[in-house]
């Protein structure tokens, strides 16, 4: 009898694991659609956010979007060859500051959401691909203004993660490469970290006071 109970417990546990594994098998395009929809709906329906409460936008981004972004990779890509020249402490600080900047920027974009909607272009990828691009468009009511919004995702052990975003035809991390290398050639990696820290301090002022 005991053995039977043990067997059922094991089988139940296995089935639960398989169920969870299936959820983790979410494709990159479904992932983008899901989190975009969740985030947009929350931003549109939340009265405080619509009234301009930036701190709430920040919380929304941290809860719904953060887990799916690979900040480490984004920072490495933006730093380019300079990444190797940085010490582990500098690298850690760089990731931390760049992450803050990106979160502030994304939250800023989100707080401008009023009545836009998203359309997705056909997703082209092999099921075996580990590096894909998801293409979408933001449709605004303004004279058919269409904003191109694409994502680059890479498959890691923890699932699909975003490592670059394309807005209006420009990849964000590619664009930051120029900024990073200019700062570094001016004042070194520490100078870049300092500039990022100061910028974040300024931006955080927008997100701590409630309107």
């Amino acid at each position, binding site marked *: 009898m005991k053995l039977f109970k043990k067997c059922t417990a094991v089988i139940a546990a296995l089935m639960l694991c398989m169920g969870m594994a299936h959820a983790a098998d979410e494709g990159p395009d479904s992932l983008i659609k899901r989190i975009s929809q969740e985030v947009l709906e929350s931003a549109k329906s939340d009265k405080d956010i619509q009234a301009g409460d930036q701190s709430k936008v920040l919380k929304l981004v941290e809860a719904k979007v953060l887990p799916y972004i690979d900040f480490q990779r984004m920072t490495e890509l933006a730093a380019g060859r300079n990444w190797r020249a940085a010490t582990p402490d500098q690298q850690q600080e760089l990731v931390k500051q760049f992450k803050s900047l990106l979160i502030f920027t994304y939250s800023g974009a989100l707080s401008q959401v009023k009545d836009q909607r998203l359309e997705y272009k056909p997703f082209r990828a092999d099921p075996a691909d580990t590096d894909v691009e998801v293409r979408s468009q933001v449709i605004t009511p303004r004279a058919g203004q269409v904003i191109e919004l694409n994502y680059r995702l890479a498959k890691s052990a923890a699932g699909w993660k975003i490592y670059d975003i394309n807005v*209006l035809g*420009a990849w964000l991390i590619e664009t930051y490469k120029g900024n990073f290398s200019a700062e570094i050639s001016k004042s070194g990696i520490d100078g870049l970290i300092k*500039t990022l820290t100061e910028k974040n301090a300024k931006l955080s002022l927008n997100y701590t006071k409630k309107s």
Partner: protein
Amino acid sequence: MKLPTPTSCAALLLLLCLGLVSGCTTVNSTVSTVKDRANRFAEQVDPFENVNRKTFEFNDRADKAVFKPVAQAYADTVPGFVQTGIGNFFGNLNDVWTGINSFLQGNVQDGFTDIMRVSVNSTFGFLGLLDIASEANMPKHKNDLGQTLGVWGVPNGPYVVIPFLGPSVTRDAIATYFDYYGDPWAYMRPVSVRNTGTFVRLVDKRAGYLGSFSLMQDAALDEYIFVRDAYLQRIAGQIETRKNYKQLRDEDEETQRQIDEDEAAAKAKVEAAAPKP
């Protein structure tokens, strides 16, 4: 076993010395190579950087002093449907030149769509105030002579910042001058009406970019470099897309077909597996 000859010894020693020396200089040269590469890129792409930066700062001051406040006031006070109407009206005029350029680039399908857009919107859309065509599955495009020249293979030329108009490249800056002649509004008379219309058109356009501008200012560490790099990426991507429009369109259609087939197959499976009443 053969003993190493003096010549091969010397060669080995030389290699070793070279290796050591180059190893030493590699570390220093990596740092300076990064700087050099950055500088060389800037020199190739943006040889007028000094002048461009000054123009960029001038545009920024003019924008803060005049254009942004006016656009903000416009966005805040003018009713939404009026703003949309104004945008649609001038958008419709843009479609004429856009269509001509689509044809010039060899994109016949887009060209015909643009012609249809102008026809439909000008008639059923009350002279373009309503954008009916977009809802009737005729997507709006935006094209100009600079893009056409790019598709034809004319290189960008150096990056330039045009007073008031903002980032551009030499090829497009020259082309913008000729874009003017493709703009139906340029032929509007009396001149006072034309000028007022142009002013409203520019204000409306600026109002459309209020959000993205402030976002850029938040995101950028060095606004000048950020705008330059983003802009160059953007037009390069646009020209690439226009050059390969046929292939991309076919790929999209093929993918959509596959998606539809998969969905139909999945649906059929579900229905087949459902218990019969």
